[in-house]
């Protein structure tokens, strides 16, 4: 085929761009994590692998273990993300299921209403809750009318507010793929299960739920990945080091001054945690692909 080379030429500018601004920066983080500070205390990356200094990386990884300096942030990240993911599932799955399977005339409208938050700026959505949860905001006014005169302090180091904000911020990314997954399930398979004597509940548990599992996992990946790198939700809703997540520590060290080596090492910790999750994701999707092939 004479055309083969021109297709490669088409891809070339984009591939070069990605190499320059994805691959090289990825190596730069590694070099920075393995780097040093110079005599002016400025961080300097070690570009040559033979000159690597593993000190910061080992400090970051040992600090991320239980009892270490960064363990509270790692623990907060793991707890907040798992609780937020569970809530995303508990709220998001019924919504996605209803819109995909039961909504008829309202389906178009509901899809639109589910898509809107997707495109409303994340920071505006946080801003909205800052207004509602502030000490004279509507949430506390509501609590006062039902007789709770000393409502909690929502916006200063309250982990429940942070989890609520994470769910609020990321749940649209969970609902849409799950909706698309359930919507794609062939109804005749569920009818077959019913014809063979399954109760509605059994048909749901043994047909719909397993068939929507790939989309649940995709949705979970879509919310978990950004949550792990999140620092702005915490900064806006809590603004207290008690609820720091891993993203806050990274942001602090990288943007806060001369500790960039440590910040880059914590990025490696983050990627290591995500790599475990990714390996599970790849394993599960490969298994599902075999099972449903």
């Amino acid at each position: 085929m004479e055309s083969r080379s021109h297709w490669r030429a088409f891809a070339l500018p984009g591939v070069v761009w990605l190499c320059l601004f994805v691959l090289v920066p990825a190596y730069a983080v590694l070099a920075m994590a393995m780097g040093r500070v110079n005599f002016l205390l400025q961080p300097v990356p070690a570009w040559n692998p033979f000159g690597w200094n593993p000190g910061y990386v080992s400090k970051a990884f040992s600090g991320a273990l239980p009892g270490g300096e960064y363990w509270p942030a790692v623990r907060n990240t793991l707890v907040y993300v798992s609780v937020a993911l569970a809530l995303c599932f508990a709220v998001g799955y019924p919504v996605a299921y209803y819109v995909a399977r039961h909504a008829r005339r309202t389906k178009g409208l509901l899809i639109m209403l589910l898509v809107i938050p997707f495109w409303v700026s994340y920071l505006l959505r946080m801003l909205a809750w800052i207004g509602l949860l502030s000490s004279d905001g509507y949430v506390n006014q509501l609590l006062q009318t039902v007789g709770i005169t000393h409502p909690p302090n929502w916006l200063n180091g309250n982990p429940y507010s942070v989890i609520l904000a994470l769910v609020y911020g990321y749940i649209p990314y969970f609902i849409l793929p799950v909706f698309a997954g359930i919507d794609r399930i062939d109804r005749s398979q569920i009818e077959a299960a019913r014809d063979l004597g399954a109760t509605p509940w059994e048909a749901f548990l043994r047909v719909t739920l397993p068939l929507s599992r790939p989309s649940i996992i995709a949705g979970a990946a879509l919310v978990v990945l950004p949550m792990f790198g999140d620092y702005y939700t915490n900064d806006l809703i809590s603004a207290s080091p008690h609820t720091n997540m891993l993203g806050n520590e990274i942001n602090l060290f990288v943007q806060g001054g001369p500790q960039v080596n440590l910040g880059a090492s914590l990025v490696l910790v983050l990627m290591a945690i995500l790599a475990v999750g990714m390996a599970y994701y790849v394993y599960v999707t490969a298994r599902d692909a075999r099972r449903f092939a």
Partner: protein
Amino acid sequence: MTVTGIGARELATPAAPAGPEPVRRRRLLPAVLRNPWGRPRFLVLTTWVYIAWALLPVGIAMLFSFNSGRSRSVWQGFSLRWWWTDPSFSVFHDPDYTHALVHSLELAALDMLIATPLGVLLALGLARWRGRGSGAANGLMLVPLVTPEIVMAVSLLVVFTQLAIVPFALIHLGTGAQVVGQVTFSLSYVVVIVRSRLASIGPEYEEAARDLGATPIAALRLVLLPLLLPAILASMLIVFALSIDDFVVTQYMSSNASTTTIPMFLYANARGGTTTPALNALATILVVTTLIGIGVAYLIYTALGRRASTGEVSALRDLSGLETA
């Protein structure tokens, strides 16, 4: 659909099938009283409560841009003070606000103009190029979609502050680095949207053109590009929306106050006790701009793309780039 059980709407509509109708109707009230949390009812309730919860806070925040007082949490009456009538602190008069607005639009325009052509070429190349390196290029394209943004932001920051070789030495923190960062993550979205459209068009039209004597380039220009046009226009608008909403990469790539964007401004001032509802007005402008862009993208995609039979759901899926993520 027997799984449904007795749905609220089926009971309410008189046009339901005639057979079991009388029985059902007699059971209506007791059924509700016996089990108000029966499955469909519970689902309807959950869905609408969720939608109210998802949208009302945003609506309230937008409403507060019309507050007549300085508070962003207590309503003090309606005014256009923070939009226009206050001569120094309204969103269109305070230079800090207008600057952030203008800079956001600038970045979005640049991102759109660079990422769209680059992404379209990459999508065409990746879809057709079979050979050494194509698998790796495909994988590389997906990396920005599956990496937390802070990782990309930190790595780009290290490159632009530490690497003194061309091309990195030519790009400085500020507008240049912000555009590079935004293009890098927008690129993948363009590729995903254009490729899913390419897949739904199929190779037949292009092959027909080739059989009729067109060169590969002529077939591309005369046949494929017109068919891809809705996807290209839609991805342009999506890039615009992604750029204008982006916070993390844009913040890390910024240099000083002159490169502040709307999301950065929201982040810096959202908790400030002295911040006025002009901030809510700024956020409202951001959201309305984004939603108009996305709405137009959706209309273009569904209206021009009807030939390749794209329904509501598949358009939604294509536009959100969810299939590959």
